[in-house]
C-alpha cells in the first residue's frame, strides 16, 4: 500500500502527498489530528488577530460565568478567560513542541551512537540515561526548575531531561536491531564510512521509532509542563499556560468551576489526541496481528 502511495506521489506536489499521507490514517487518529488542528488554529488566531480580546485586560465583573460577552467566563480579576485560554494553549503546545524537538535531536544522536557504536561512549550514554531515568519525572522537573529559576526555560529544560532518557533508550534499541542487519555489514565491508552508514541506513530505518516515540514524548511533555506550572515552577504570571490556569482555577473551584473545567478539559483533549496519534503511528510502523485462541 505504501508503494502505491509513493509511486503516485512522485507526480504530485509535496502538499498533496502530505495530505494523502494524513488521509491514510484511521478515523480515530484523524479526529485527533482535527482536534489538535482546531486548538492550534484558535490559539494562533488569538495570537495574531486578538481573537477573544486581550488576555491581560480587565474587562468585566469578577468570576462571571460564561456568557455571550465572555464566552469562557471571567477570572478573579475580571479578565476574560477565553483569550487567556488561547494563550495558554499556545504556550503549552509551543513549549512542549520545542522541547520535544530538542529531545528528538538529542535522543536520536545519543541513541544511534549508543546503539551503533556501543563501546565505551555508548555505555556512558546509556549509563547517564539510566541515572536520569532513576529520578521520578516530576521530582527531576522541579529540581531543575528550582536550579534554573521558574519560567519557560525551566519548563523547557525539565521536559527535555525527563523525556530524553526513555527516548534515547528506545532509539538505541531500534538502532541495535538495525545494526545487526546484513545490509549494514555489507556497507561496512564495502568501505562506507560510519557517519554515512548512520545517516543513510540507520536513521532512515529507525525513523518510524523516532516518530512514534517523539509523539509519545510530546504527550509526556504536556503532562510535565502542566504539572510543573501547577506546582508553581513552570510558566509564571502574567503569562499563561494550561497548567497554570488549572492551578488558578483550584482557588475558585466552588464559586467558578468553569475556571478549572475549561483548561482541564482542553489539556486532557490535547494529550488524548496526541496519544491517539501515537498509537496510530505505532500500529503503522510496528504492525501486530491479533490472534484468538479458538
Amino acid at each position, binding site marked *: 500500500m505504501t508503494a502505491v502511495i509513493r509511486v503516485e506521489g512522485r507526480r504530485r506536489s509535496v502538499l498533496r502527498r502530505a495530505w494523502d499521507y494524513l488521509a491514510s490514517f484511521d478515523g480515530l487518529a484523524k479526529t485527533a489530528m482535527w482536534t489538535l488542528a482546531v486548538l492550534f488554529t484558535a490559539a494562533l488566531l488569538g495570537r495574531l488577530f486578538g481573537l477573544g480580546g486581550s488576555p491581560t485586560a480587565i474587562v468585566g465583573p469578577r468570576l462571571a460565568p460564561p456568557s455571550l460577552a465572555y464566552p469562557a467566563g471571567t477570572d478573579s480579576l475580571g479578565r476574560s478567560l477565553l483569550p487567556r485560554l488561547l494563550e495558554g494553549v499556545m504556550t503549552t503546545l509551543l513549549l512542549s513542541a520545542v522541547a520535544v524537538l530538542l529531545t528528538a535531536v538529542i535522543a536520536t544522536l545519543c541513541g544511534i551512537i549508543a546503539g551503533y557504536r556501543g563501546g565505551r561512549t555508548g555505555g556512558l550514554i546509556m549509563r547517564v540515561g539510566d541515572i536520569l531515568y532513576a529520578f521520578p519525572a516530576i521530582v527531576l522537573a522541579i529540581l531543575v526548575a528550582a536550579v534554573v529559576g521558574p519560567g519557560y526555560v525551566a519548563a523547557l529544560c525539565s521536559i527535555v531531561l525527563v523525556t530524553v532518557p526513555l527516548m534515547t533508550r528506545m532509539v538505541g534499541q531500534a538502532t541495535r536491531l538495525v545494526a545487526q542487519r546484513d*545490509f549494514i555489514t555489507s556497507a561496512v565491508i564495502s568501505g562506507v*564510512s560510519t557517519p554515512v552508514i548512520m545517516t543513510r541506513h540507520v536513521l532512515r530505518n529507525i525513523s518510524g521509532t523516532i516518530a512514534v516515540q517523539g509523539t509519545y514524548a510530546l504527550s509526556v511533555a504536556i503532562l510535565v509542563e502542566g504539572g510543573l506550572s501547577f506546582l508553581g515552577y513552570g510558566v509564571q504570571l502574567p503569562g499563561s499556560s494550561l497548567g497554570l490556569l488549572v492551578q488558578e482555577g483550584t482557588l475558585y473551584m466552588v464559586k467558578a468551576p468553569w475556571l478549572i473545567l475549561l483548561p482541564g478539559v482542553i489539556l486532557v483533549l490535547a494529550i488524548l489526541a496526541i496519544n491517539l496519534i501515537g498509537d496510530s503511528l505505532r500500529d503503522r510502523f510496528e504492525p501486530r496481528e491479533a490472534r484468538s485462541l479458538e
Partner: protein
Amino acid sequence: MSETILELDRVTTVFRTGWGRGRSELVAMREVSLDVRAGETLGLVGESGSGKSTTASVALGLREPTSGAVRFLGEPIGGPKQRRARRGLIQTVPQNPHWSLDPRMPVGLSVAEPLAALDGSRLTAHAERVTELLRQVRLDPALAARYPHELSGGQRQRIAIARALVTNPRFIVFDEAVSALDVSVQAQILNLIIDLQARHGFGALFISHDLAAVRYLAHRIAVMRLGEIVELADTARFYETPEHEYSRQLLEAL
C-alpha cells in the same frame, strides 16, 4: 597456478563472555588454515555452531583473530583502517534475502553504494553501471527503481550479487547466500555465480550448511566441525574418497 587471494594461516578465534565465576570461553576457530585462489571457489561446509560464520567474518576482516595470520593479496588484512584502504576489493553476499538490502532504499542505489564509497560520489551517479550489472545478473534494469519488498527472494539475492560485483572485487564471501531460497530459485542463483566467476575471475568463499549446493559449485571443499577444519580436498576427490568419518556422514545424509 593462479594467484592466492586470501589466506588464513593457523587462525584461532576465542570468544570470552561474562566475568568472575560466570566467565566462559568458546573456541570458535581452532588453528584454521585455508586459502582461496583467483577464479576459484572454496566451499566451506559445517553445521550450525561449527565456526563457519566466524570464519566468514575473519576472512572479511570484520573480526580480528585471537592468534594466527589473515593475508589478503599477500598483505596482512588488518583492521578498520586497512578496510577503508582496500574498499571495493572484498565484497559479500549475505544470507537472508530479507535483510541483504536496505528496505528503505531503491535497490538500484543499493547496487551503486559500493561504487559511491570508492570515490565519495553520489549514489545516483552510477546509473549506467547499475544497468550493466542488473543485465549481468539477468534482471530487468527497470527493477532498479523498486524497493526490496517489491521483489521476490530470488530477485533480491540477484541484486545482492550485482551489488557485490559492482566494484570488480577480487574476493567475494557468499555466506549461506542460497540457503533461504527455494530449490528451483537456488539452482538459478548457483548457475549465475558459476557464470559470473568464469567471467570476472574473483576468488570466492562459499559458506553453507548444505553440502549439495557446495559441491555443485565449489572447486575445493573444506569441512568444518567444532571450530576445526576436519577435511579440505578437491571436490572430485572429496566425492570419491572422503577421508574423515564426519565427511562420510555428511555425504551419506544427502
